């Protein structure tokens, strides 16, 4: 019967799917080392490659800094690199990890480390041991330094004293130090971005505050009710901008802040500014970095009204695009020379207002990865269209959370 045959075929296909997936995964798993080692020339080249490969594998954990966890994950590869019987990584207080034999020397090593950790110079010393057939008799200490400060030490243990080991340990320690310096750099970059967010927060421009208050003042006598409303808008907006907790907010909250902001701007410019809003309601709960759309709107307002007396139009669109939300902010103002814009985004120049754009771009890249930066289409006199793609879910990103550490 054709029905049964086709039914069987379909069932077979369904059953085969998991196996195909498993095979794919297995293939990828096993293919990697085979491909990387095959086709290499002389034994020396091979050995060089092997060493470099081991070093590369040991690097990623250390990029997160020197902790028990990262030390544990890298120690094995470091020992392979040095080819010793035992290797340990320490910080100032204790042994973080002991890889290999002779772990009973932990306490002794820590005692003898005080000198090298203080001076920052490497040394080799004989280990005292009661066990007759203890495999490690000598320890080579190489300090790990970051910016000339000692963070810890790498200790390699061997049965005999050897000048080669001393040199090698020194080199490996220097290499580890470089990784730790990179970790330090990562850390300071995150801190810098945090500081930038704080700076942007503090930065709702003094002009804006001054202008808003002046506008409100102008209404106080003629239209006290309007003045009161504007003051409330102002209060809501500043409250949002100055809030302390969390680095993220939802699109709905950000749009409300933009609403307050626009109310104040409109009080000043009246009919000259019109705004269209198109929102797909399902993207409103999307989480995004705090104050990352308001600067774009502020930018659009500035560009739209700059140097012209007639009307200006801004449109804000947020639509659903699968696992992402697509936010587009468009104005019909003076636009910008793309070359100037490129310089602003790469941080070379920062004309008035430019810091907002590059800061938002930077933060989006930091949080969502480099393919989620701002996309800006503009030319002189042709207005400006800014597109931001916000993933609906990103690990570690939620309204009350801090910036995820990479």
């Amino acid at each position, binding site marked *: 019967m054709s029905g049964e045959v086709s039914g069987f075929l379909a*069932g077979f296909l369904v059953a085969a799917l998991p196996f195909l997936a498993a095979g794919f995964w297995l293939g990828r798993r096993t293919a990697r080392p085979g491909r990387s080692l095959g086709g290499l020339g002389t034994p020396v080249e091979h050995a060089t490659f092997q060493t470099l490969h081991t070093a590369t594998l040991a690097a990623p954990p250390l990029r997160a800094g020197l902790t028990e966890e990262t030390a544990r994950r890298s120690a094995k590869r470091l020992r392979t690199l040095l080819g010793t019987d035992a290797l340990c990584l320490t910080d100032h207080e204790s042994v973080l990890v002991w890889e290999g034999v002779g772990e009973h020397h932990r306490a002794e090593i820590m005692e003898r480390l005080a000198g090298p950790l203080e001076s920052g110079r490497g040394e080799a010393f004989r280990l005292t041991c009661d066990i007759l057939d203890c495999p490690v008799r000598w320890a080579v200490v190489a300090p790990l330094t970051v910016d000339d400060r000692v963070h810890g030490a790498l200790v390699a243990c061997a049965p005999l004293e050897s000048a080669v080991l001393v040199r090698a340990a020194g080199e490996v320690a220097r290499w580890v130090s470089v990784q730790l310096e990179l970790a330090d750099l990562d850390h300071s970059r995150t801190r810098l971005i945090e500081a930038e967010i704080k700076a942007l927060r503090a930065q709702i421009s003094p002009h804006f505050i001054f202008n808003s208050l002046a506008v409100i003042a102008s209404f106080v006598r003629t239209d006290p009710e309007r003045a009161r409303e504007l003051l409330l808008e102002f209060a809501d907006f500043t409250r949002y901008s100055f809030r302390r907790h969390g680095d993220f907010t939802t699109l709905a909250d950000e749009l409300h802040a933009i609403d307050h902001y626009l109310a104040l701007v409109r009080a000043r410019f009246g009919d000259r500014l019109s705004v269209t809003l198109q929102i797909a309601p399902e993207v409103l709960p999307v989480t995004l970095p705090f104050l990352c759309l308001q600067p774009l709107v502020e930018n659009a307002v500035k560009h739209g009204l700059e140097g012209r007396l007639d009307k200006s139009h801004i449109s804000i669109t947020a639509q659903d695009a699968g696992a992402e939300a697509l936010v587009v902010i468009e104005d019909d103002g003076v636009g910008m020379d793309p070359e100037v814009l490129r310089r602003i985004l790469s941080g070379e120049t920062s004309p008035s207002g430019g810091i907002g754009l590059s800061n938002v771009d930077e933060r989006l890249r930091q949080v969502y990865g480099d393919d989620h930066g701002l996309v800006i289409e503009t030319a002189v006199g042709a207005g400006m269209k800014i597109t931001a793609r916000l993933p609906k879910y990103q690990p570690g990103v939620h309204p009350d959370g801090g910036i995820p550490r990479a």
Partner: protein
Amino acid sequence: MNENYTVPAVALVVVATVFVGAFGLRISRTTSDFYVASRTVGPRLNAAAISGEYLSAASFLGIAGLVLVQGPDMLWYPVGYTAGYLVLLLFVAAPLRRSGAYTLPDFAEARLASKTVRRLAGAFVVGVGWLYLLPQLQGAGLTLNVLTDAPQWLGGVIVAAVVAATVAAGGMRSITFVQAFQYWLKLTALLVPALFLVLAWQGDGAPRHAFDEPASFREQRVVRVDATLDLKLAEPLTVTVSGTIDGRRHDEKRIDLPVGTHRVERGTRLTFTEGDPVPVADRGSNGGMSTSLAEGREERPLYATYGLILATFLGTMGLPHVVVRFYTSPHGVAARRTTVVVLGLIGAFYLLPPVYGALGRLYAPELTLTGDADAAVLLLPDRMIGGLGGDLLGALVAGGAFAAFLSTASGLTLAVAGVLTQDVLPARGVRHFRLGTVLAMAVPLAASVLVGGLPVADAVGLAFAVSASSFCPLLVLGIWWRRLTPPGAAAGMLAGGGAALLAVAATMAGYPGTGAFHALLAWPALWSVPLGFLTMVLVSLATPSRVPAETPSILARFHLPEELVGGQPGAASKEIELWRR
């Protein structure tokens, strides 16, 4: 059926869906309604959207077909489909929303911080999505076939093309309004004809023997057998035959068939007289839609019922298109309220298909024979009312049926395509969502052309079983158990979901097992769900060192109301108002 009315009705539904999808954004031109435009989706709108997406071909056509063929036992289907949301409400809704996850793989990653578990969850989302899409396309094929005599595959191709085109072209810019619209359309399309049908039934003297065994013909009826089938007779039957029975040709001859099984060749016309019992078609030779698993159910009725209950109760929470909709709720409490409204909306809807099923038993019992029982909902208006009224009501029902295929299929396609582009296809700059969409639709379409045998509601039941055995353990343990580990979750999903998937594959392949073993494969939930839970718990307990370090803070975030975690924004006005008083 009159094509002059049904084809425009179906076309209208398609056009309306595309239109609402493309232009259903909230737009504000004046500044005063800025607030309205940026207001989050309320529980009622979102609940209508969830219901619209959820009520699929299985609900719209399948349940009535099953009730027609199998009687009131099949009411467990609507009960299960509804009660799934009760479980969702109690255990999952609010924490899932608070996790910030958009899809199930997102949830796996948010809870367990493991890329591997994420990929595995993605694979199961694709599997469940495809299994669920398959009956939608089959249902569309059946509907169009019954209404216009188009070939079986055409309806599926139309639905697949419309959905893939709108989704891939970015036409579903605001799916919430589309789905909410579809819910009300579906409800109307079943409710209005049902009222008229009930009136017609009243006018007919309100016969009450709907569930008498066996069903019998109420008037003389000619039945044309479209596919060769085996008739099983429990008592002798006298029938007028024009065609071939048991290898002998008859021409408008009245013959007596003794007790036993008789082979009726395709193209044969059987004329039954009033009061004749409706014979039952045998499984295996019957290419129809509503009977293939029936035997298993007859042999193990209690087991099958429990299997069904477990699958539908626990499977709802793992349906990819349902989970995605909860993201639209602004916070956990709203997600819970939404679920309560969903329970009401779906409960109201599910009162209707059984009415059609019962009326179908009275007025179209021969559908049991020809294997088109799923078409009962479509045929009844014509059969009971007839004339222009019947045609118009039939067109309304047909439109509603297409709304059911379109809404569920588009929701599923979006969910599956999202997972495919994010986790399976290689990312290249702007991710190729379109390729993912086409892929998400092409596989079930191919399968629906290849497989033609499963009843719609049963096929959906299998998707539920896989979901219940893989995602239910992941969600429930992930939310309520702090010792869950990534290896445990992966092993549990593989063991439970994988076993259910294999059982499903065996069932769909027509595995010739009989008796208890066949029932075990046809209704896997009863053993595969506990298997999934048990594996997840045991493997997690065996790998205590792999508990993610952040578990306590993650669980705190899942369970604490948002106001406790973060402050309420935009409260300045309120505060100042208070202060003024």
